[in-house]
C-alpha cells in the first residue's frame, strides 16, 4: 500500500508558540483516520501544512507524491478539503458555487449536477446559498471537497452543527469514498460518532502526537475497564450483589441496575456467572470503553 501522506518529524512554530512539535504521521491509501485533539492542539495547523498553505520549520511532508508547499497542480487537483466553518458566498446559488470550484479543478461541468444530487442538494441547487440551512451548507462544502475524484480528503470538524441523521449521511458518503480507495482524514473532537468509521485514531495534544493506532489497539494499550450493566428483577438487587461477590467496587444506578467496571481478563468470567443467575438477572449489557473515554485516558496520561 502506498502512503498518500508522509509527515516526518515536522515542527511548526508561531513566534514562541510551537503549534506542531515533531509530529510524524503516515496516511496510507484507503485509510480513514480520525485526528483528535482539543481546540488549539495543532490539528488545523497540521492540515494547513498538508495543503501547503504554510511551510514546516523542520521536517518534511510529502502529499500525494509531492511537497505540498510547491503548490503542484496535479496533486492539488486530487485533494479535497473542507475547512472548519466555511461561509460560502450567500448570494450565489448552490450550483453556481460548485461550478466555480469545478472549473478551478478542471472538472467536467456535467459532474456538478450529479455531485449535488449525491449530497442531497439536487432540488436546492438553484437556490441561493444564503437560504440554505447549516446542514445544507455543510453538504455543499462536502460536495466541493469531493470534486475531481480526490485521493485524499481532509475534513476539518465536518459534522459540527449537523443533526444525527445528517451526520449518518455524512459518514455514509465518507465510507463510500474510502471504499473507492480514497484516504480520509477527519479532524474532530466528537469522537463517539466516528466509532465504526475510523480505521485509526491519532490523538494530538499541545502539538505532540500522543497516541496512534486502531481503536482496538488503543483500547488494549489504555486497558480501560469495560463497563458491565446488569438489570435485575425488582427486589433482587441485593441478592445478586452477594451472589456475585461484589463488595463495593460497583455502582448502583437505580433500584434494579448495577454497573461494574472490569478489565478484559475478568470480564468473561463475570458475564458467565451473571448469566447463570437467570432467575434474578433480566439483562446484561457490556459497554466497551468509548472513544471519548480513550481520548480522556490518553490526555490524562500526558498531564500526569
Amino acid at each position: 500500500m502506498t502512503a498518500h501522506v508522509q509527515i516526518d518529524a515536522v515542527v511548526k512554530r508561531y513566534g514562541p508558540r510551537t503549534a506542531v512539535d515533531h509530529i510524524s504521521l503516515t496516511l496510507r491509501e484507503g485509510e480513514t483516520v480520525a485526528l483528535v485533539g482539543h481546540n488549539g492542539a495543532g490539528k488545523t495547523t497540521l492540515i494547513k501544512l498538508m495543503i501547503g498553505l504554510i511551510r514546516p520549520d523542520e521536517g518534511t511532508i510529502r502529499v500525494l507524491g509531492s511537497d505540498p508547499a510547491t503548490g503542484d497542480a496535479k496533486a492539488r487537483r486530487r485533494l479535497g478539503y473542507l475547512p472548519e466553518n466555511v461561509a460560502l458566498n450567500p448570494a450565489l446559488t448552490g450550483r453556481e458555487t460548485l461550478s466555480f470550484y469545478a472549473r478551478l479543478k478542471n472538472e467536467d461541468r456535467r459532474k456538478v449536477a450529479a455531485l449535488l444530487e449525491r449530497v442531497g442538494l439536487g432540488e436546492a441547487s438553484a437556490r441561493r446559498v444564503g437560504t440554505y440551512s447549516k446542514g445544507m451548507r455543510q453538504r455543499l462544502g462536502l460536495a466541493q471537497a469531493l470534486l475531481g475524484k480526490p485521493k485524499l480528503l481532509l475534513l476539518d470538524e465536518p459534522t459540527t452543527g449537523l443533526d444525527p441523521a445528517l451526520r449518518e449521511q455524512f459518514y455514509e458518503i465518507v465510507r463510500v469514498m474510502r471504499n473507492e480507495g480514497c484516504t480520509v482524514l477527519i479532524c474532530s473532537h466528537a469522537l463517539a460518532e466516528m466509532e465504526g468509521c475510523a480505521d485509526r485514531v491519532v490523538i494530538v495534544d499541545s502539538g505532540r502526537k500522543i497516541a496512534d493506532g486502531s481503536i482496538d489497539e488503543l483500547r488494549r494499550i489504555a486497558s480501560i475497564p469495560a463497563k458491565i450493566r446488569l438489570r435485575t428483577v425488582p427486589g433482587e438487587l441485593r441478592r445478586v450483589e452477594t451472589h456475585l461477590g461484589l463488595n463495593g467496587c460497583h455502582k448502583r444506578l437505580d433500584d434494579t441496575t448495577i454497573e461494574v467496571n472490569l478489565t478484559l481478563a475478568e470480564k468473561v468470567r463475570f458475564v458467565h456467572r451473571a448469566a447463570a443467575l437467570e432467575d434474578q438477572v433480566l439483562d446484561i449489557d457490556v459497554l466497551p470503553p468509548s472513544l471519548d473515554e480513550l481520548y480522556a485516558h490518553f490526555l490524562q496520561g500526558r498531564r500526569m
Partner: protein
Amino acid sequence: MKAVLIVALKEVQEGLRNRWVVASSALLATLALTLSFLGSAPTGSVGAEPLDIVIVSLSSLTIFLVPLIALLISHDAVVGEVERGTMLLLLSYPLARWQVLTGKFLGHIAILAFATMVGYGVAAASLPLTGASITARSLTAFAAMIASSIALGGIFVAIGYLVSALAATRGAAAGAAIGVWLFFVLLFDMALLGVLVVDQGAIVSAHMLDAVLLFNPTDVYRLLNLAGSGSVGALAGMSGLAEASALSAPALLAALAAWTLLPLGAAGFAFARREL
C-alpha cells in the same frame, strides 16, 4: 491564466448578484445625467462645446465617486475571504495567491468599467436630446475621460487590496479604506492649497508642485483630463496650472500606471506573507 479568468468571472458574477454593478452604474448615470442637463443650461455665450462642459463636470464627479466605489468593492477582497474561511478553501485548489489577486483585480476592473461606461455613456448619449451638437474632438476627449476614470478606479482597487491584505479584520479594512479616500480626495488637496496660499510662491516652485501633485492619483487624473485639451482646460480654470506644469500626457499616464502597479505589487507581497 485560465485560473485567473475563472476568479475574475466569479467576481463579476458576485458583483452582478450583490447589485454592486447595478447600484454603481445607476448612481453614476443619475449624477452624470443631472450634471449634463444642469450644465448645458448656462453655456450659451461662452462658446464652449457642450460635451466639453460635460467632461469637466463628470471629471469632478469621478474624482469623488470612482475612488469611493473602487475602495468599497475592493477593501474586502482579501480580509473578507480570510474571515469567511473561503480563502483557505480557495488556496487548497490548484491556484496560486497571485492568481487569486490578479483574477479579483480583473473582475473588479470589469465591474468598474461597465459602471463607468454605462453611467457616463448615458449622459453623453442624452446630450443630442438637448439639441447640442457634438464634435469629433470632444468625443475623443470624452472617451479619454472615461478610460482615465477606469484607470483611476483601478488605482483605488489596487490600494483597496493593499489595505485588505494588511488589515487584521474586515472592520479595520473598512476604516482604513475610508481614511484612504478622505486623504486622497479631500485632505491632500486642502493641505496643498493651504501651503500654497501661505507660501505665496516663496519656496514651492512650479516643479516642486508638479512633483507633489504626482503623489496623489486624483491630481494626476485631474491634470490629465482638465488641463489636457485646450477648450476643456480653459473651461475648467486649470489652464494656468497646466501651462506652468512640465508634466506631459505620457508622464501623467506613466504616473497612473505606477500608481496601479505599485500598490498592486505591494498587496501581492503582503498577501503572500500573510499567515492564514
